[in-house]
């Protein structure tokens, strides 16, 4: 179990770093799908080893919501947007470097948790947290609405992975609430982005700067 969970979390981190590195939007969306599938695999692996049937159901919902419905909404949001950001912004090398540093930070922050844990999955907990931190980094540095949403979703995936690794699944009502939440947030984001695009003819966030002071 330790090997499987460590391996899956590690692949998840690699995919996250690829999301940081790649600039083309369709590629990043596909990487997000891959990450969600890894999350589902993690949930089912933990479910099988720890005999938690509920986690298999969670894995199925992850596949449907995060690997199918949300990417479809994302491609709707992204339709018409240029494949790459117009402005040649930061080099992605720098971003990957920051993301690498965040992995170290994640290990340091999660020290108390791994010290208190007596689980076969504890080794993967900092990796999941690193995914969350990198997602937050993507969200904060995102240059358009798509970057923000993708960062948020990666962040959410990391936290969800951490929840599975540390607790073997939360009570059903909370899990259901989390899924509903992410789905509704993405749908509302779509509605908002559609309006932003109509108003500003672009989804670059630099144009959103009416409110100051």
């Amino acid at each position: 179990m330790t090997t499987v969970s460590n391996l899956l979390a590690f692949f998840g981190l690699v995919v996250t770093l690829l999301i940081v590195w790649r600039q083309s939007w369709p590629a990043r969306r596909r990487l997000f799908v891959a990450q969600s599938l890894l999350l589902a695999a993690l949930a089912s692996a933990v479910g099988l080893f720890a005999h938690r049937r509920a986690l298999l159901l969670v894995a199925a919902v992850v596949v449907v919501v995060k690997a199918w419905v949300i990417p479809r909404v994302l491609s709707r949001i992204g339709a018409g947007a240029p494949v790459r950001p117009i402005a040649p912004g930061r080099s992605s090398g720098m971003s990957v470097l920051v993301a690498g540093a965040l992995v170290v930070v994640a290990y340091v922050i999660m020290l108390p948790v791994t010290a208190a844990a007596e689980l076969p999955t504890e080794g993967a907990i900092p990796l999941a947290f690193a995914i969350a931190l990198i997602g937050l980094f993507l969200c904060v540095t995102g240059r358009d609405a798509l970057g923000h949403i993708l960062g948020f979703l990666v962040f959410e995936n990391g936290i969800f992975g951490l929840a599975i690794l540390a607790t073997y699944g939360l009570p059903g009502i909370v899990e259901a609430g989390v899924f509903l939440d992410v789905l509704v947030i993405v749908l509302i984001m779509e509605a908002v982005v559609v309006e932003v695009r109509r108003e500003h003819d672009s989804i670059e966030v630099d144009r959103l700067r009416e409110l100051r002071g």
Partner: protein
Amino acid sequence: MTLIVLLAVPLVGALVLWRASGSRATVLHGLTSAFTLAAALGVAVQVNRGGPLAAVDGLLRADALSAWMIALIGVVAALAATEAPAYLRPDAPGRFYPLFHLFVFTMLLAVSTDDVGLMWVAIEGTTLASVFLVNFERTRSSLEASYKYLLICSVGIAVAFLGTVLVYFAGIQQFGDEAHALRWTTVVRLAPGLAPRVIELAFVFLVVGYGTKAGLAPMHTWLPDAHSEAPAPVSALMSGVLLSVGVYAVLRFKPVVDLAAGPEFARRILLALGLVSIAVAAAFLWTSTNYKRTLAYSSVEHIGLVCLGLGFGGVWGTAGALLHIANHALAKSVLFVLSGRIRKAYGSTEISAVSGLMGPMPFTGGGFLAAMLALLGLPPFGLFVSEVMIFAAGFTQGFPFIAAVGLILFVIAFAGLLRTTHAILYGAPSSRHPVVEAGGWPRAIPLAGALALLLLTGLAWPPGLAATLDRVAAIVAR
């Protein structure tokens, strides 16, 4: 049973209103608001007479702290509801009322559940229910405000989820598969045995996450935008009670971290965030040129004061903070309602555009002045009492330095707000001429009622208020 009624009324109201329109919708809206208020006050009275209420196998639970918040949400929602019909647009029928009641429902659910996981879901629900209300006017700036609001609060609330997960993790690591390990009552019972470092880490995440919703600096950046762009009744709800619900969530976890890791940890965090919030607000209160944003920054200041009170602790600090939450909610919701009327009359939210308002709008201006004096913390209004309690707690609990810094920042903020108030009410008359003031006593009654309540908390505490505050403080300070 009353708890279920309390939650069912706004939820059913929202569902029914989804399909209603025209005058029927207004009547239904009025009925829903009235019943919500009645149920909220009913729950509050019942809890204060007979102790905590529970329903649905303990999933819903209202103790004195919940009852305090429920009553507050009921009163502010009713106040905002009386103003809502003036904001309905003919071309967007039906959307405003249902979302309004859904928003109220999510806030009531957040404060009346015992399950911290469900509380998290409900608080996230408050964002989702209110994001379209912020963008109700569908202008460029309101769109930008709702985008920022949704993004920043979603990220914040996800951080709070991480904190909740860690609390759950600490519980099951220590005590195995404790049934209901996410119930607040269970968490508090187990708290002394939980791993202190994990709970400390969890509390940091929880404070950052729920502090985003509460509008604590430096996570407050969504707040002035959303509060200034939302229609006035929604601003009143957001500033009055939504921020307080964020504080409430932090309050639920404070005893947990106090019991698990000692009182110093939470205290330091709350005092630091409180001071930063007051400082940031003081700076922007001097520079803002938009009166709705000024009111929003004043909310940041007051939430900072509440945090200071909670950080100082003791009976006075905690009770003062809780009383301050209520006082601020009443004063600020009156001011937001009035600012909406001013905006309607002048068609602008710039201070320079409405200056010298007392001349053409004496009726609204008088109310604005009274509520502003209350908000500034002048006697005989309740904010004076709660602010004295908070700072007195600072000096008596052994934090004279922090209390003094807080007091200085508070005075700077006070002066900034006073300057703005003076410009709005008595400044050089602006070139714009307001639409004739829609006077009439009926529209003044709810506002006068809120100000009367502030006089009560300021001058003569009704019998039972002291005992209630003691009971609430006993839940938070252990």
